[in-house]
Each structure stands twice: as C-alpha cells, then as structure tokens.
C-alpha cells in the first residue's frame, strides 16, 4: 500500500518540503506528532515531525533537511513517486491551550514543526511571539507563514545576513529580561539550541517545552531505542513524548545517543553517493 508524493519542493538549499497522500493519518494528525517512513524495501525507518496536515485533501506535509543517506535519497524523489511505508500519527499531540503569551522558537529545519503549533496557539487565543533562526538568510524557512500566525516575529541569523546577528536565545533572553510576561516557551531545533533555550528560561522559571528527535525504530514503544532521561527517569520519546519539559531533559545524554551510529551513517552515505555518482574510490 504505497504512499504517493503529491508535491516536492526545495524550500531553501538542503531543506525540502514534501506532501504525502495519507488520508487515514491526515484525519487524525495533531500538531506535535510525527510520522515514521520507509522509502523502499532496503530502507531504514526514520521519524519526521509533521509540519502540516490537510484533512480535506488527506495530506501530510513534512519538511526535512538532507543530511545523511535516507534524507538525501528522500530529497531525490519527485511528485508522483511513492514511499513504501508511512506510519502515524505517532507520539502525543502538543499541549495547546490558552496560556496567555507563548514564545515559539524554531531553529533551522525546526521552524517547520513549530509552525502548526504557532497556528494552534494563535487559534486558541494566545499572544504568539515567534523567534525563528538559521545559520544564514538563505537558509531561513517559512518566514511568511510564521508571520501570518504570530503577533510578533523575530528573525536571527548566525552570520547576521538577516535580522538579529546572533542566536535565537539572545532574543528569548532579551524578552524575558525586559519583563515581557511569558507563560510558556516551545523550542524546536537542534539539541544544542534546545539546551541553550532551556538554560535561558530556567532562571526565569518559565515552563519550556522541547520536542526530542532521538533515534527510533518502531516508534510505538516496543523497542526503547529512543530512550531519554527526563527528571532522572528513563522515558521513551516515541510514546511518552516527543515533547518534554526542557528543564528536566538530559541533553548531553540525548546528544551522545544521537551520535551512536555516526560511523555507520557515514559509511551508508558514502556508499549511496558512490552508487549515484559513480564510484571514484
């Protein structure tokens, strides 16, 4: 029962958007949840956060960065192609309610999963302050979409080519220091960024939620590959998360565990490039 790709677009260099026809999943999907996909028979199962869904059209939108073998192979597919397996919606939905003022922080490709949450927080009556960042202006994602659902939007780039020259955490810190009343922070991006945001909000005692992207296999709680330490307790990101209280997450362990298969990932990626481009080795 393959899943058809209806749309495929490179939004900014290396970051791709894909709409998949998956009516059963689209019917139930909520912000904060993820899918697991497998491209073909020899493929691995990878989790990707749902960036958007359209119940009427029966589609799920994913945004991903081509960094290793599977994501690069995924980025080479076109509209009309099919994925062999597409499973979801997995994990718990984000906790959306009217908290008052919510800061949403999206770093790099993390802007994508932040978007449906920003929209949902806005629809629930919150004041939405969004901070989106990237390494450089040409890598900035979905500025227009985020602006539409935000009361305030801040942009940061590491190299200063757009918005604030620096990190998303600089803005979070400035807002909190200026006495902005903030009831909740949601931060999604690279683990270092999420850890930094947690560090900034901790002294202000503002509840901060992060979405953890640990390595998964089945995604339904059966294997435990995705285990993370939260408040000194082992949790499974797939069924207990993927969202957790950032102030309780052991980010060092998360990063160490994410590095577990680096040599294998490198080998698989090199083999893939060899096969695609003709081997020079």
């Amino acid at each position, binding site marked *: 029962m393959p899943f058809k790709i209806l749309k495929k677009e490179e939004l900014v260099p290396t970051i791709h958007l894909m709409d998949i026809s998956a009516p059963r999943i689209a019917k139930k999907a909520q912000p904060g949840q993820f899918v697991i996909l497998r491209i073909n028979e020899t493929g691995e199962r990878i989790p990707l956060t749902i960036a958007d869904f359209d119940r009427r059209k029966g589609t799920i939108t994913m945004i991903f960065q081509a960094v290793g073998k599977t994501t690069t192979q995924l980025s080479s597919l076109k509209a009309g192609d099919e994925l062999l397996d597409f499973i979801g919606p997995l994990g718990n939905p984000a906790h959306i309610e009217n908290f008052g003022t919510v800061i949403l922080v999206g770093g790099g490709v993390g802007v994508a999963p932040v978007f449906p949450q920003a929209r949902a927080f806005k629809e629930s009556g919150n004041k939405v302050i969004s901070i989106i960042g990237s390494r450089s202006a040409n890598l900035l994602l979905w500025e227009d979409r985020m602006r539409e659902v935000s009361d305030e939007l801040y942009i940061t780039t590491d190299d200063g080519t757009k918005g604030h020259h620096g990190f998303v955490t600089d803005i979070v810190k400035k807002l909190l220091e200026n006495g902005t009343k903030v009831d909740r922070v949601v931060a999604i991006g690279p683990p270092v960024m999420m850890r930094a945001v947690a560090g900034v909000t901790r002294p202000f005692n503002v509840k901060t939620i992060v979405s953890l992207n640990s390595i998964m296999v*089945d995604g339904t709680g059966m294997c435990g590959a995705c285990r993370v330490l939260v408040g000194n307790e082992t949790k499974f990101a797939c069924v207990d998360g993927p969202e957790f209280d950032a102030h309780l997450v052991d980010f060092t*362990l998360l990063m160490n565990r994410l590095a577990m298969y680096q040599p294998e990932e490198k080998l*698989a990626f090199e*083999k893939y490039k060899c096969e695609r481009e003709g081997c020079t080795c």
Partner: protein
Amino acid sequence: MLERQKMPEQDPKIRRANFSEVALGFTAEQAAEEAKRCLQCKKPKCMEGCPVEVKIPSFLKYVADGDFESAIKEIKADNALPAVCGRVCPQETQCEQACILGKKGASVSIGRLERFVADYERNKDVEVPSMPEPTEKKVAVVGSGPAGLTAAADLAKMGHSVTIFEALHEAGGVLTYGIPEFRLPKEIVKAEVEYVKKLGVTILLDSVIGKIDTVDGLLGDFDAVFLGTGAGLPMFLNIDGENLNGVYSANEFLTRVNLMKSYKFPEYDTPVKKGKRVVVVGGGNVAMDSARCALRLGADEVTIVYRRGEEEMPARAEEIEHAKEEGIKFRLLTNPVRIIGDAKNWVTHIECINMYLCEPDESGRCKPMPLSGSEHKIEADVVIIAMKSK
C-alpha cells in the same frame, strides 16, 4: 523404540557465522519412522498438552502411513500456523511433555513432525479448505502476530469477514521482528501469512490502532474486535548505565537484526552495533536468540548472564543446547548490578554479582539471593537486556 530419529542440523562451526536455518528437517523416511513410534493412546495426553488441541495421534498415524497430505489437513483443522508452531512452540513443556513414551525414553518428536508435514505441503501447493457461507459479520483483529493470525484464520473459516491491523510494515509480529531467520526463516512466516490471506483475511500494514483509530472507533465499523497486540514496552533492569550507547533492549536488537535486516547492512540501511564482546542478560528464548544473533554478526565472545541456574532457564531446551554448541558462554547464578561506560557514553563493562538459590518457597521456585562481596566486572561493548515486556 525409545530413541528418536535425529533431525539433520547445520554444523555448529559453520552455522555460527550464517543466518540460515539451523535445523534442516526430517526426510520423508525419517518422518514415517518417527511417527511409527506413537503408541496411538486411547486417551492421548499429548492433545491435552496442546493449547489448540491438534489431533496429534491422528496426524501421526497419517505420517506413519506416508499420507502427508491427510496429516497436514488434520493439523490445519485446529492450527493455522503449523510450519511456525512446529519450529518454535515449546513442545517439551506441552505436547511432548505429556507423551507417555517420555516416561521411559524419548517422547515422539511431535513438533518436528508437524514441521515436516507443513514444509511438505508448502513445497507442493497449499490447499485452502472449503469455506462456509459468509455470516455477514465483520471482525477487526489488532496485531498480526501468532495470536492475531490464528484468530483471523479461525474466524475466517467460520465465515466471518476479517481485517487485521498491523502497526509495523510487515505482518507476523514477533515471528517477523523477534525470532531470527536461523530459527524461523522469514519465507516461512510469509507463506503462513499468505495462507491466512487466502482464507479471505485482509491485512492492513502500517496501521497503528490507538493512533489512526481506537477500539471504540473500530466497533463502529466491525461487529467485534480481537486484540492481539503483543509484548508491549520492553523492561529494563533499573540499574545504572542502561542508557549507555551499546546497551539494547532485546526487542530493539532483534528488531534491527530481523525486521530491518541489519545483518545485511549496508545493503540494508538500518545499522546495528556489532560488538566484539557481547553480554546478554536473561535466560529465555529471547536471550538465546539475541546471543546467537550477536555471534552471527561477528562477536568474538558472547556471554549469557542469568541470575538462576540452567534448570530454571525458561528457554526451550533445544535453544540452550544450540547456543552451547555454537560457543555461547553461560554465566549462571550471576546478576547485573550496574553497567559502566566511558566519557563518551559508550558501554565498557557490566558489573555483576554472584547469586545462590535458597530453598524453594511456597511457589516452588528458588529465589536467587546475592552473594555479598562477589561483585565482578565483565568486559562488554554491547549489552542486551532480554527481560520480560510489560
């Protein structure tokens, strides 16, 4: 009369380096000879030992007469998965334990004969029994493991319309993700699944009930729901160091190796850590499977750590025997205390303590007690926790 036919097996020295099936199965002559050992008891105890009450003496009689086709039909009247059950059922605690012959010598090899006739049929043409009139009733089965497949087949044979919902991308449940190729070839699981499909059962893969639908939701579309969801979350030991890199639950390790075929990495994309020194904690079939997979992935040394003695091990006797033949080391009466790692979060050792068994308690089981001062470290770069699931 008292001795069994010996089933041909791959040589341990060769098989420890491949994933092909260990047991090769009886020849037709051996099968007939073995079946002739059955005493055809008037009150067959073996049937009482079988959870689905396969008519064992009757199928054995057909095998003894060389009528393998009638034999498989007789089994399939009660059991939809004979090629699987013949290989992985714990016969020595079920049908074969109850066999009268076992009192004086060796019981009839009921499991191996079940396997033989199932394989005989598969290598020819699988026959679908005549089906009754449709009942117009619809049943949803959640999970396509042995329970779900069996329930679906039985329901279909009663004339119901059956749909199985499977969370993973392949059907079979533990038969697919858990039990390794060398014990239960996936081609055989696929053939058994095909048989269930031929009975008219629809299998929807990639369908996580609880996510795309709920039991209440299913009851809107179906007349009944059968839950065969399987093991659930893996249990860890709740000791220090279980989140170190290189520490696996058996569920994860086996899923990577069997379902995702990481033993064929990088031809298949899913990696698994191939340890040099692997320690497996536990004494069940899952522990034996994990240890033997680790060995086949190329480990120099694989050690099973179990807190009780060999007598108490829940694994099938044949699996323990096979593991030993292949060179798996057993450290019995040994229990992990903590797992030790390096600065980069990689496991380096597992610290264990020796145990002793006290007098049996009211339940009849000997409780293992730690022998204080006996703590010792075992070097390990992969540790696999093969405990029960919850």
